């Protein structure tokens, strides 16, 4: 699923320029995994999906992996702490999380980029970025959340001892 979303992101979604920016569906993966599988799954999926997309990006290698790991872990910790059982068939919670944590992910990415000196904050189209990406990620979550639930169920079955 990570490979599929990464290739779709690079080959298709990156070309959808809406007010000069494109959605970043990569962040939906750790958010969905954190919601459905907890902090451990969120962080692991975040690292793997971030690492995969970093292979194609001109930004510092590992930066998306770092941000996605943080987002997946944070969503999972929040869900674990509040002891919320997320029903994959009710996607509204997933969309709200996708929008808010994508927003947070973009801010974190921009801030770390500026700190390490690769992308100055003035070189970013803030308004379109912070509106377009969370909105489309919230929409994409409607499809990604059920797929992630299916994916995590398969993984659990495969690793079960019986």
């Amino acid at each position, binding site marked *: 699923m990570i490979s599929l979303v990464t290739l779709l992101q690079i080959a298709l979604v990156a070309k959808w320029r809406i007010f000069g920016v494109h959605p970043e569906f990569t962040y939906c993966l750790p958010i969905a995994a954190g919601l459905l599988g907890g902090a451990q799954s969120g962080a692991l999926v975040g690292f793997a999906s971030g690492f995969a997309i970093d292979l194609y*990006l001109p930004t510092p290698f*590992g930066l998306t992996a770092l941000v996605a790991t943080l987002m997946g872990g944070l969503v999972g910790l929040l869900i674990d702490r509040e002891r919320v*059982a997320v029903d994959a068939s009710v996607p509204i919670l997933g969309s709200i999380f996708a929008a808010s944590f994508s927003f947070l992910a973009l801010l974190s990415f921009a801030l770390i980029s500026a700190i390490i000196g690769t992308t100055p904050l003035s*070189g970013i189209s803030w308004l379109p970025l912070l509106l377009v990406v969370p909105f489309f990620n919230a929409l994409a979550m409607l499809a990604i959340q059920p797929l992630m639930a299916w994916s995590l169920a398969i993984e659990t079955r495969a690793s079960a001892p019986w």
Partner: protein
Amino acid sequence: MAPGPRPRRLALTLSVLLALSITLVTLSARGGSSVTSGFSNVTRDVTKPFASGINAVLAPLGRFFVGAFRYGAVNDENARLQAALGRVKQDQASRGFRDQQLRELMALSHLPFLSALPTVVAQTTMIDVSNFASTITIDKGRSQGVTVGMPVVASGGLVGQVIEASRSSSIVRLVTDGSSRVGVATPKGKLISLVVGHGATKKLTVDGIPSTSSVLKDQRLFTSGLEGGIFPRGIPVGTVEQASSPTGSLNQTILLRPSADLSHLTYVDVVLWEPTP
């Protein structure tokens, strides 16, 4: 929801993943580790056919999506293209005269790179894959002689510089990227300064021009080619669109329009010239 792992195991997993990510970022940001860039280059080469395949299959869907959101803009663009086509037809009659004029202008503008330096024609395969960097990916790489640092030009002027080169593809940082810096000068080399990018949707600016210097609107600026510079001399970078001196400021505020049409980069030329260390 799956039952959560024990807190110690979770803390360990998170710590390891975060430490690994931070290490990769540090290695990459400190001038490019051969391990991280090697990973990227091999992956891009291996997955190029898959990405191209997905692109070919899903491109109509993407065009539909973009068209749905930009219907008005597409109509406007169509009208502009029709008008441009009419002008091109009209201009064909005086083509010979214009060719002669062009040769003269090139000589006047000191564009030695066009005739003196070898170039490789490359096709753009990806544009701006990240929201945080203005880059293009081209289909030529090390096996065609393209290496990191080489300038990339299109018909109008400087497009950017190669920042990563794999066997069969390269990433080019555009002049509009937030971290792009280009040393420029006027054709006679009188005024030397630095052009700074501010992202794909914003104009270039020229830094450090004193208020006392005369910079005219529509004046063209070229790469300065100073010793140790990262571009050869004489590539058109941009045209001054606005020059003003804010009250009390020692420097002018100058906005520059890129010479190359960065919205139409289907084909570009990589200049086989490496910066002198």
